[in-house]
């Protein structure tokens, strides 16, 4: 086991023991942060590993969430049916979007992914298939044997377990030949083609895996919130998850998790009326300025902070 694994392992153990000391509010907050960490990790596979900046990643989160609610129906149903459906739906849309958008590059890719996400957004927003702009409630949560996601403690462990599993899965992918290929594509796609890699297929595979994992985050989010609405698919959400990566530091899985923590906590903080009074109503502004300050001071993200501090001590 290399040293790289010590911090994530300790963090995972701490998270598993944490509920013993948490208040309901903080436990809920940890669950929220962990779900967004799963979402951010899924995008990191595209942005940080493969070098594909997608501005439409929320579409897959939203589709996963909507399918969770729709497939649960009035009676809940089995997780063994609902979860695969949610993930498959997200992956299927990712296949469709990826197959078309990966024919473009750079800023065109950003715009095309954004356009496809907006398309999905307006399907849920403007049609009656799932409550229109109001969204719909999840009347009964899906179950599996003794597992009851209505129980906050159980939900907590399911979410933390999922975060650990997704983190490990992406770490495994990066370490394998597949991940090395994606990294090569990020650095110099033309050279990879010259070596014999049909790069389109690799990029599409990464896109579908990322979409499927975002669908997992959507499944968890729908169950945690007990409701879904079209805003889940909006470009704000796609932008927010991209900001999490930037805030934490692109190019590292830990950065993605740290970015999700920082973004979600900062957002909670700036919405606290008790602390900020009337300014709390304008949390987007304070959050925006804070992120600009972070990016200006820490261009490599929070993950670069340690190197910065160590460097300062030696320099």
């Amino acid at each position, binding site marked *: 086991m290399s040293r790289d694994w010590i911090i994530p392992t300790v963090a995972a153990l701490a998270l598993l023991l944490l509920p013993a000391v948490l208040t309901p509010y903080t436990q809920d907050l940890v669950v929220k942060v962990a779900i967004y960490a799963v979402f951010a990790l899924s995008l990191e596979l595209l942005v940080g590993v493969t070098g594909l900046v997608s501005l439409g990643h929320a579409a897959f989160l939203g589709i996963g969430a909507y399918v969770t609610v729709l497939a649960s129906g009035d009676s809940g149903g089995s997780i063994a049916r609902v979860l695969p459906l949610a993930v498959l739906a997200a992956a299927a849309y990712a296949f469709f979007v990826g197959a078309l958008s990966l024919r473009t590059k750079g800023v065109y890719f950003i715009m095309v992914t954004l356009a496809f996400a907006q398309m999905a957004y307006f399907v849920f927003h403007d049609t009656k298939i799932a409550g229109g702009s109001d969204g719909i409630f999840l009347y009964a949560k899906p179950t599996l044997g003794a597992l009851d996601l209505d129980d906050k403690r159980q939900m907590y462990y399911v979410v933390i377990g999922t975060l650990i599993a997704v983190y490990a899965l992406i770490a495994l992918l990066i370490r*394998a*030949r*597949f991940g090395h*290929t994606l*990294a090569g594509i990020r*650095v110099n796609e033309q050279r990879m083609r010259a*070596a*014999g890699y049909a790069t389109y297929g690799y990029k599409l595979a990464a896109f579908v895996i990322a979409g499927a994992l975002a669908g997992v985050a959507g499944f968890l989010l729908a169950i945690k919130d007990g409701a879904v609405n079209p805003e889940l698919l909006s470009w704000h959400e796609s932008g927010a998850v991209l900001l999490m990566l930037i805030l934490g530091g692109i190019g590292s899985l830990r950065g993605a998790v740290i970015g999700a923590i920082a973004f979600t906590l900062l957002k909670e903080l700036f919405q606290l009326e008790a602390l900020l009074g009337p300014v709390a109503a304008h949390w987007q502004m304070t959050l925006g300025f804070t992120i600009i300050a972070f990016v200006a001071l820490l261009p490599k993200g929070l993950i670069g902070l340690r190197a910065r501090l160590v460097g300062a001590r030696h320099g």
Partner: protein
Amino acid sequence: MAELLRATKLTRRFGGLTAVDGVTIGLHVGEVHAVIGTNGAGKSTLINMLSGELPASDGTIEFDGHDIGGWSQPRRARAGVGRSYQRTTIFPSFSVLENCRLSAQAALPRAWAVWESAQRCTRSLDAAHRALAAAGLADAATRPAGLLSHGGQRQLEIAMCLATNPRVLLLDEPLAGMGAEETSRMLALLAELKREHAVLLVEHDMDAVFRIADRITVMVNGAVIASDVPERIRTNPEVQVAYLGDEH
């Protein structure tokens, strides 16, 4: 030796400009076939068409009995058509070894073996080490590729091409920017490589070309004006007028 790659009447038009105009060229194992010509003569465009980076407007390309004109670049590369680039296109942040290992991995099956660490993939590692040894970079394996000298990066460019286990080498100015000693070393490497490969060499360094080439094709404005053994190219009056100048 038998002809391994043959392009017939290969043409590439960019709008109104004909960059490569009906070029016919054959590559044999055991031969270094040099293509010379002034800047803009169409040499790089020719390599780009042979490697599959650019589709040809006209003409055919045969490799080992297959018509590969419609094949994508990755497919041609996996079949054994390797190329190097005029501008160095290594992966600077990766180690020298990983540059070659990644190139070697392209041809391997089971790309989806996710449980297996790429750094323990022995087949690609072996191929990478062989390529580095052949290119004279065995000692630099663990260094970041971006920290190599210019000559070292040119050597790595060749090593990455070799790691894919090609049968045809399309080398675009491998000697560009190299000093005398590095040039000698590279020419020795090419002499070694031609024994098992068919080599196409695009190069500006005339001394080097006449030292190493078994056959020389001269291009002017996209068309071939002469193709022969070096001695006869040297004395060809048309070539002298068009390209070599009075000094030869």
